[in-house]
């Protein structure tokens, strides 16, 4: 790659801007084009279901890098630009306006799309889902109208997005009903004890939680949502409905271009796709672990780390992403921080005060630490992150003992610590 080389990045979110920035840091001197399908420069998505949804504010407050940064990094940013196809034979991307953009190397960072409810009425006015700034604005506005008109907000899905929106809606003064299909909240990613904590929290804030709710139909009047009907015949009146039932990787362009995709663009630890000149990063990817399993992570950290890996790979260098995955969620006054992947755990112990809540749940498989969920326990989270990255961990008895200093384990000389990272590359799991 030289100063005449052209890199095109498809997708102007967290992963896209990271690839661009890291490419410059890796010494790329060529032409760098970042294509985004939204009107905004790259911005942070996590606040869209948290603080920004409640408080609103300028769009600029969400920006990831200012225009000065974009200019200094010599990135040609093209917002509002949709890509119609990637043509690998000609090494061009075809844009929605019919023009073509040639590349020498390509990066795919197309993100994910919210799942839609496969039921009648799902496209009625007032049925909303969250992906971008425009969606967050629409949801905020709908919640405020519901609060004014004293009509309930119905949230479909008791996962992170659904619960954060529920918390925001309560803060904005609306009545809220959460319909969850499974018997508990956030069941894909947390233990029952943590689900129970959040159920108590939401009920204490006046949210109606309904479990085992299979949405059968969204009922409307004059094209506008009025209720949600579940399979057992119950009807839940609704001024608006927010659907938060997970996302699907947006791998359509990659798949159409013939890249290997399996619910996401398949990449290795270095963000390389099945094609040597193309990398992919962020929500749109499915990472192949050394044991052959595929892991999908939808997180800021994953977008950043894969973005760095992808930039290095485009420059012909290997920079694997092996750190333990971490996430966070804000609901009311509880800060939930998670590190590692708990899938496949066979034991959970808690540390701290469950009632407050101010505790952490430690997940083990065969005595080995997989993951830690911390609620208002920042020190546990930060220390667990380091433990998992260093491949050391407390026994379940030590973890459960609040007097036991987790950091004491990090003082062990490195030569005696196991090499593998339990929450990192050696662990399979989906989030």
């Amino acid at each position, binding site marked *: 790659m030289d100063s005449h080389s052209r890199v095109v990045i498809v997708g102007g979110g967290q992963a896209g801007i990271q690839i661009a920035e890291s490419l410059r840091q890796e010494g790329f001197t060529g032409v760098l084009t970042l294509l985004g399908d939204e009107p905004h420069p790259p911005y942070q998505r996590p606040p869209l279901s948290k603080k920004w949804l409640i408080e609103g504010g300028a769009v600029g407050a969400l*920006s990831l890098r200012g225009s000065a*940064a974009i200019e200094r990094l010599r990135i040609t940013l093209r917002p509002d630009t949709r890509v119609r196809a990637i043509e690998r034979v000609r090494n061009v991307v075809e844009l929605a306006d019919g023009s073509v953009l040639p590349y020498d190397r390509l990066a795919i960072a197309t993100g994910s799309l919210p799942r839609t409810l496969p039921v009648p009425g799902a496209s009625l006015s007032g049925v909303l889902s969250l992906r971008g700034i425009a969606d967050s604005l629409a949801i905020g506005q709908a919640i405020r109208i519901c609060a004014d008109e004293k009509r309930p907000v119905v949230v479909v899905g008791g996962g992170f997005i659904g619960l954060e929106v529920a918390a925001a809606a309560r803060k904005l003064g609306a009545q809220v009903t959460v319909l969850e299909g499974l018997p508990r909240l956030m069941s894909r990613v947390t233990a029952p004890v943590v689900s129970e904590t959040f159920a108590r929290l939401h009920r204490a804030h006046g949210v109606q939680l309904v479990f085992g709710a299979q949405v059968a139909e969204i009922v409307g009047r004059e094209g506008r949502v009025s209720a949600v009907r579940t399979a057992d015949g119950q009807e839940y009146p609704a001024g608006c409905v927010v659907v938060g039932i997970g996302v699907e990787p947006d791998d359509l362009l990659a798949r159409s271009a013939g890249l290997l995709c399996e619910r996401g663009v398949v990449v290795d630890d270095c963000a390389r796709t099945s094609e040597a000149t193309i990398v992919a990063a962020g929500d749109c990817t499915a990472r192949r672990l050394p044991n052959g399993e595929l892991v999908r992570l939808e997180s800021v*950290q994953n977008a*950043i780390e894969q973005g760095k890996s992808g930039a290095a790979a485009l420059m012909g260098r290997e920079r694997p992403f092996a*750190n333990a995955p971490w996430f*966070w969620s804000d609901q009311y006054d509880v*800060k939930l921080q998670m590190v590692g992947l708990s899938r496949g755990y066979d034991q959970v112990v808690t540390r701290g005060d469950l009632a407050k809540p101010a505790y952490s749940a430690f997940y083990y498989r065969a005595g080995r630490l997989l993951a830690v969920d911390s609620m208002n326990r920042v020190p546990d989270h*930060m*220390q667990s992150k*380091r433990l998992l990255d260093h491949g050391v961990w407390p026994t379940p008895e030590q973890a459960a003992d609040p007097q036991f200093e987790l950091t004491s384990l990090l003082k062990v000389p490195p030569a005696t610590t196991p090499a593998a990272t339990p929450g990192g590359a050696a662990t399979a799991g989906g989030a």
Partner: protein
Amino acid sequence: MTRITYVEPDGRPVTLDLKPGQSLMRAAMDAGLEGIEAQCGGNCACATCHCYVQPEWLDKLKPPSDDEQFMLSNVAAERRPNSRLSCQLIAEDALEGLTVQFPDRQS
């Protein structure tokens, strides 16, 4: 405007003018400085906007909150007595002329 100087990990100084109330992290991200990551976007949740404050300025800053203290105890680079998270440092007149240095790594 508050004039703040950031020293990149390679020793290069960059001086920026901050608006009152803007965090040192926000301004550094907007300017595209290299020594900062700020993965969580200013929520005091990731410790990847770590910086070293010139020691003589320490007294002039609001002391770190408990959460910031905890985050600082686990930063990726060496923690020093003058370590702070730049998302928690807010521009005000009293900080005119402050210099902060970014560590060699954030994650």
